[in-house]
């Protein structure tokens, strides 16, 4: 029996406003418990919510970035349920009429690419945190997070594999960071995905029963959880069972999903429009202003890099992983016109490797684009070879100085003097008669070995092209 997998993702992106969606308390991560919860966040008797316009602005930005409809009038609704980290006993969310409707996200897949439709995106407030360890059988409640603005982004069930789901999640993650609405810090909980997974016989159009997997805070866990769930559902059905609609949690230690214990899955939230908040009205002028301030989006930037700099898709996809990386690349490329490929290679190669090793983000890179360009210029003009440049880069990374200063100080200038190189080549030929003989006997590799010896003798500083040419000449072949 061939099976088709159907996946939809619900993503909660914490909007990077300075204060909460309905109160003025700070949203900064990591403060001591309950130090960033105002009277409104604690739901003291008599308090009322006031909408943070910055949160709305970010929702509009998102809607424009995915080509969605911005509803000119949307309504806040109360989602009622009891839990200690939900101070009011209800969450202010949006139900029937969300701020953003529709839209789509283009993702890259094994088959090339596809468009994943979005159902909607709406504004809501985050709950606090429940901490179950360290409290001797009790639970600690930290309300710092209560009231943080969230944009809940719901996709249509358009994905057909865990790979597509991960591609969607990564693309969405990059987009929300690109347009500056969310910092995307998954460890801190700024970007959380829930996956809705169902299976059906290939060719069937009716949807199978889905399960929702919550609490996936890394792309790896997202992939693993979906894979496990697919297998679980298929096995269950093949053994004659039926999939029960339920909410499941992923356990990354045991690599399995488990039904959540005490939650009723068909809970009635008794949604009704929140009488404390008037309908959210967004006029055309506001939308126009946000549109005019929207940066060129990742896909458009990628296409521009391809046409403007002649770079291949493999490079442009990587260079547009974040707005900061794209900007860094362009600033570097500006310093080496007609050698943008060189810039791309270095940004994606040496720079990225160094960042990864230092577990650093591009925003904290210690080598500025201007200085990197300075280094690349010295490769271009033949002052140093590519190999030497790597050593210079390492020194720049450690803060020693700019390229020229390092080249000067360490005497790394490439040797381009034909006479000097000629002498070295002569010495190498004289010192290695056996290898010369092998070459003359037809062994190509021997030539490379001789080149290597010449480079070694000059501590790598000889111009490799010249070494090659002179050696060839002197060997007469």
């Amino acid at each position, binding site marked *: 029996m061939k099976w088709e997998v159907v996946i939809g993702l619900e993503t909660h992106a914490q909007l990077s406003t300075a204060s909460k969606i309905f109160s003025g308390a700070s949203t900064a991560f990591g403060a001591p418990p309950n130090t960033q919860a105002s009277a409104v966040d604690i739901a003291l008797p008599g308090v009322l919510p006031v909408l943070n316009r910055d949160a709305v602005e970010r929702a509009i930005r998102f809607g424009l970035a995915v080509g969605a409809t911005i509803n000119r009038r949307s309504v806040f609704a109360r989602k009622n349920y009891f839990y200690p980290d939900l101070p009011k006993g209800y969450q202010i969310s949006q139900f029937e009429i969300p701020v953003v409707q529709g839209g789509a996200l283009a993702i890259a897949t094994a088959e090339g690419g596809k468009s994943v439709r979005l159902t909607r995106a709406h504004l809501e407030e985050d709950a606090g945190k429940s901490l179950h360890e360290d409290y001797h059988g009790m639970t600690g409640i930290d309300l710092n997070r209560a009231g943080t603005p969230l944009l809940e982004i719901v996709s249509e069930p358009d994905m057909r594999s865990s790979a597509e789901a991960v591609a969607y999640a990564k693309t969405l993650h990059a987009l929300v960071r690109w347009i500056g609405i969310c910092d995307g810090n998954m460890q801190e909980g700024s970007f959380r995905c829930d996956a809705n997974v169902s299976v059906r016989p290939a060719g069937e159009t009716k949807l199978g029963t889905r399960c929702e997997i919550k609490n996936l805070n890394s792309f790896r866990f997202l992939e693993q959880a979906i894979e496990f769930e697919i297998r679980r559902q298929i096995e269950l059905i093949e053994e004659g069972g039926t999939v029960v609609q339920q909410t499941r949690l992923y356990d990354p230690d045991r690599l399995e999903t488990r039904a959540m214990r005490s939650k009723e899955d068909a809970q009635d939230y008794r949604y*009704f429009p929140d*009488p404390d908040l008037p309908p959210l009205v967004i006029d055309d002028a506001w939308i126009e202003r946000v549109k005019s301030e929207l940066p060129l989006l990742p896909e458009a930037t990628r296409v521009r890099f391809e046409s403007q700099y002649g770079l291949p898709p493999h490079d442009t996809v990587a260079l547009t992983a974040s707005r900061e990386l794209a900007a860094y690349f362009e600033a570097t490329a500006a310093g080496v016109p007609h050698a943008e490929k060189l810039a791309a290679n270095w940004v994606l190669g040496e720079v990225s490797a160094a960042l990864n090793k230092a577990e650093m983000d591009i925003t904290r890179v210690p080598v500025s684009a201007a200085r990197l360009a300075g280094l690349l210029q010295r490769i271009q003009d033949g002052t140093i070879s590519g190999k030497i440049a790597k050593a210079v880069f390492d020194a720049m990374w450690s803060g020693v100085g700019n390229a020229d200063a390092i080249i000067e100080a360490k005497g790394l200038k490439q040797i381009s003097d034909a006479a000097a190189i000629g002498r070295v080549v002569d010495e190498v030929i004289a010192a290695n008669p056996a290898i010369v003989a092998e070459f003359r006997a037809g062994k190509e590799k021997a030539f490379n070995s001789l080149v290597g010896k010449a480079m070694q003798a000059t501590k790598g500083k000889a111009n490799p092209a010249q070494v090659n040419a002179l050696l060839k000449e002197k060997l007469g072949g």
Partner: protein
Amino acid sequence: MSAITAPIAELAEALRAKRLSSVELTQGLLDRIARLDPVLNAFITVDRERALSDASAADAAIAAGTAGPLAGIPLAHKDILVTAGMRTTCGSRMLANYTSPYDAHVVRGLKRAGTVLVGKTNLDEFAMGSSSETSHFGPVKNPWDLRCVPGGSSGGSAAAVAARLVPGGTGTDTGGSIRQPAALSGICGLKPTYGICSRYGLVAFASSLDQAGPLAQTAQDLALLLNAMAGHDSRDSTSLDRPTEDYTRTLGEERGAKPLAGLRIGLPREYFGDGTDPDTAKAIDEALAEFRQLGGKTVELALPRVKLSVPVYYVIAPAEASSNLSRFDGVRYGHRAAKYGDLTDMYRKSRAEGFGAEVKRRILVGTYVLSHGYYDAYYLKAQQVRRLIADDFRRAYQSCDVIAGPTAPTTAFRIGAKTDDPVEMYLNDIFTVAANLTGAPALSIPCGFDRSGLPIGLQLQGDYFAEARMLDIAHRFQQATDWHRRIPAMAAP
């Protein structure tokens, strides 16, 4: 002695002229409270030290010439408006020891106007009731007849003003809870247009219906208090941002013998049927005759859907209340059960112990009408009918300027008389709830007594933002009559 039981306008004048000090006035009223409140149970909290301290400060401001119009006037706040540093119980075991870190917006406004905070008044628990019998702190008695209720839910403030324990107080009105106790206690009360007074600090019962408002001896006093209570508050998203109004601005105008000339008073036929007690009907008729004497004309009109007000109200109010009261869960403040097993047990016990029967009843009804499968038939339908009722009123104001009628169908009933039948209790609100559903302003003023000597109230309703005009009409009536000057025997100075 009678000086201290005078209305606010007279007291303010006496204080400014230094014929009386705020300390003397406050001390005198505190003595009256000590003497009379044990019988009335109008107060939950009285803070002598704070009151006298406020009074001293007011006297100093008056002496320095920096005093506001209400400087030195003692007041009480309904115990559902939060006061920083003084507990707010909402008449409930749930909040018996709760002290708010902040003042409600209307409390702050009255504080800034220089009033003296005497204490917090008793009420139906969480403002749910029409008799002030459901308080955890015991029922309030009507000063006109101690066997009777003063009305509710702002019965404590109404009784306190009626017995001249304070010259004015605040209340809240969700379905009539300022106007009905004002009527049953023989004083004046106003519910302003929804959005005029900020709800920040008003412990929410039904968010789309609640409004804070003043209770006092005269319409002029209501206007003075409203001036200090009204105004935009950015912390309340339903607060209206309008230019400041002086609600007393026309009260001093000399208009001769026919001050109400040109006024069209609408009389809905739905308000003059059989459901009203005959003494009440008679007193209202006599009041209307007085209005005509003053130059007003009455016109009959119809409000065909107004009879749906009570069922609509008793779907919407409990629905909103069931959600608003969810925060009382024993987690962060308020009552938490002493012993419990798990989380669900804690919730169940804390709320079962913390809430009284009427509150529980309304939470259950509210939860039901919002639940899946019933939302459309109940909550949604009620909101739609609400709009139809509002349409009836807007149409009515095309042919009249104000609408008049009884505030309540009966005078004060005996304590315990209606507690067995909640629906019978709910019918007390029949004339008052429409103004909450539509958000329009409404007030009640005394207009007579029944054969047992119990007060009767006349309700005036107006279109949105008509408060100043309504207060003017009531003021002219009070210049020609003296119902508002009557004092219950037990409170005679």
